[in-house]
């Protein structure tokens, strides 16, 4: 080792020691300009093309950069976004959207009806993941620059939530897509525009002063990817970040007692369920599935997995959603469960239950459920696999029972049709009931909200009675932030919107 490198080592060592002393070299600035918001999310977006990603972390960022034609308000009712108003024809087969005037893309170019047609056609023609949301849409056209027309095969009363309930239906910029830059440098119309990306570390957005909803009050919004909750909380306490949703359920109580932090929760719109594979014996027999539904104690599952930060529910839709129906046919009743098993002639039942560490609640619930069902003579063997394998097994039907959650549903149809209609795309448990099929189809045709709600409520009750899904709970949306962050609201759909946020001095 030469003399120079020896000195380099000495210099480095003293610098290392120097950095240990208080107050030196620590950048406590919240962001580069000191006035933006830094939000910590638990993982990195895979890509920023809203049409191609299905990753939750991507949508956390994209919620702030892209717009849809309509969007859910706080009560999850659809309200104007890029479309200022809309009209439905008498036969309910033509929807005409009038677009907001003067909207520009982040690159300064003008937004128009062609962009909407291009975006929707892209999803349909390239058979992207969200193409199913356009099932029943016959034609999309732009009669003039501020009008978009959707022609339907049959009336579709939840069209608004289909095109507005999910940022995967965002309106994208054709040049941005064709240049291939949308994956890493998206151009949207939303309240914040893309500024900078440090792979593995952070994404920085800046305020779009020309946003149609009014310029955001914070100059920048940085999303940092901090997977470890302890670290995220330490960063929040140290003032390195202003906001995070990376709080494990067991920490919620402790954090809520910290007066230097604001914690808020809202009953979430997501739901977690058990599903038994009805293609496999004996799970085709509803008595066996019902025995499981009576054999489990939802309250202790919620306690073990969510430390109580969830609402027990025996249907999918939570109280905060306008489509909520109250219904709880099952109580924790091991005797009744045992009787049902006996009447089905089932003895010494062994269940292979798929769980995955990527959703740790499934692993914990698997253990709780195993101990509960043991009391009625069912042996549950939780099989822990990674989520990629899990999806594979679910797709191929290689399981007896599984637990998972559905995220991001708004309309009643989203909660029940694809999962329980005998021809539903996501009916992996192979449930089939003519009555439920008819009710779900009727729900699509019905025009009045009250009548629709009634159809879906009846379908949902039947689904629960047949235990197609054994519904467990709706987890709370929990977010925590520094008190300087004002004007931010936790939403039950989990969408993270910083458009109205500001930082107090």
């Amino acid at each position, binding site marked *: 080792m030469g003399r120079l490198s020896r000195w380099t*080592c000495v210099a480095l060592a003293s610098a290392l020691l120097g950095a240990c002393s208080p107050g030196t070299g620590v950048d406590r600035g919240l962001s580069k300009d000191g006035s933006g918001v830094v939000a910590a999310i638990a993982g990195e977006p*895979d890509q920023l093309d809203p049409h191609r990603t299905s990753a939750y972390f991507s949508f956390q960022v994209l919620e702030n950069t892209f717009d849809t034609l309509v969007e859910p308000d706080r009560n999850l009712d659809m309200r104007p976004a890029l479309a200022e108003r809309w009209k439905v024809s008498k036969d309910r087969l033509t929807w005409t959207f009038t677009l907001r005037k003067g909207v520009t893309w982040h690159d300064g170019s003008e937004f128009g009806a062609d962009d909407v047609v291009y975006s929707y056609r892209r999803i349909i023609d390239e058979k992207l993941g969200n193409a199913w949301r356009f099932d029943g849409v016959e034609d999309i056209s732009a009669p003039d620059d501020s009008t978009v027309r959707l022609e339907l095969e049959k009336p579709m009363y939840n069209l608004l939530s289909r095109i507005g309930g999910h940022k995967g239906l965002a309106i994208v910029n054709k040049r941005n897509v064709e240049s291939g830059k949308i994956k890493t440098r998206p151009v949207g119309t939303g309240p914040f525009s893309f500024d900078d990306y440090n792979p593995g570390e952070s994404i920085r957005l800046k305020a779009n002063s020309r946003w149609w909803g009014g310029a955001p009050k914070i100059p920048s919004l940085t999303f940092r990817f901090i997977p470890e909750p302890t670290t995220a909380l330490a960063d929040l306490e140290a003032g390195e970040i202003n906001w995070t949703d990376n709080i494990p359920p067991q920490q919620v109580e402790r954090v809520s007692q910290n007066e230097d932090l604001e914690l808020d929760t809202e009953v979430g719109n997501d739901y977690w369920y058990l599903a038994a594979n009805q293609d496999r014996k004996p799970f085709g027999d509803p008595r066996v599935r019902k025995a499981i539904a009576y054999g489990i104690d939802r309250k202790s599952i919620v306690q073990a997995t969510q430390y109580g930060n969830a609402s027990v529910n025996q249907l999918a839709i939570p109280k905060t959603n306008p489509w909520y129906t109250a219904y709880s046919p099952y109580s924790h009743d091991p005797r009744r469960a045992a009787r049902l098993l006996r009447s089905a002639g089932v003895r010494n039942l062994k269940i292979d239950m798929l769980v995955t560490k990527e959703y740790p609640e499934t692993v914990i619930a698997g253990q709780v459920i195993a101990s509960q069902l043991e009391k009625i003579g069912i042996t549950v063997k939780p099989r822990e696999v990674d989520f990629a394998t899990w999806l594979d097994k679910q797709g191929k039907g290689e399981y007896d029972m599984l637990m998972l959650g559905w995220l991001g549903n708004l309309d009643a149809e989203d909660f029940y049709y694809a999962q329980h209609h005998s021809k539903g*795309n996501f009916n992996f448990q192979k449930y089939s009931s003519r009555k439920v099929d008819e009710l779900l189809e009727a729900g699509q045709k019905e025009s009045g909200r009250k009548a629709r709600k009634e159809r879906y409520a009846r379908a949902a009750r039947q689904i629960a009675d047949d235990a197609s899904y054994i519904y467990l709970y709706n987890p709370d949306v929990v977010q925590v932030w520094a008190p300087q962050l004002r004007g931010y609201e936790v939403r039950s759909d989990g969408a993270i919107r910083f458009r109205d946020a500001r930082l107090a001095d």
Partner: protein
Amino acid sequence: MLRFTLARAGHAAAVLLGVTVVVFALMHLVPGDPVRVALGTQYTPESYQALRSASGLDRPLISQYFHYVGSALTGDLGVSFRTGEPVTLVLLERLPATLSLAFAAMVIAVGLAIPLGVYAATHQGRISDTIVRVVSQFGVSVPDFWLGILFILLFSSTLGWLPPSGYVPLTEDPLGWLSRVIMPATAVGLVSGAIITRFVRSAVLESLGSEHARTARAKGLRQRIVRSRHVVRNAMVPVVTVIGVQAAILMGGVIVIEVVFAWPGLGRLTFDAVSARDYPVVQGAVLLVAALFLLVSMAVDLLYARIDPRISIR
């Protein structure tokens, strides 16, 4: 020297080719489908088929493999399934964070291990030797993520001295980098350092008892000279090997520490890529790590000759 380098390069190429076969086979053998992961839980069979053929996954495995190796030879490691970015670029973006953490951790590890190991060996049997042995045993056994979280709670949450996490490039803001690298580097460096300390101690002990050390002392050389010129230098050959292995392991990324400190290194990238079955990125990352390993082992071989003139490189 040239012959040695050429022979090692040929050897390295064969190893790398073997690595591509193994990784390719393993990734395709384990269950899990990148298309299903990319589409999530909501998709139709048509969407599935469209993405599958767009990713080239509908072609026969053998043809996929030869296509991959053919492109890799020209430096093209393919395109990430998840981000659509060239794998070479994805890897290069993460390399500075990984290398700078590995470097800082090795400075700490070696800086602690050599003095402590030599000290313990030269004070064999005394209380100070016992302390070094117990502490290094503790260092070997303690999980680095636990140490990392402990550091965050102590130095960030309680004392407020250091930022809990994050990364800034060394070239942009050296002090910012230093304040952020010090905790992860120490957490990793202490564990590596403990392993190296034990090697240094036993190598020095062996060298102390060797005949050449006895001869040197018999010649009347001062104890300090005997130790620094004859004992420690001779003990360094096995030590350099261990240091090389440790450095190579760190360069491959330290997943858990990267997760704890939100450090954008290769470990997290590879872990995420495996979870998403992003074959091109996994293959690229494993190839890169294998290449780094080979480079380090070649450097170690070259160092042997510098340390011990009896070893010649042919």
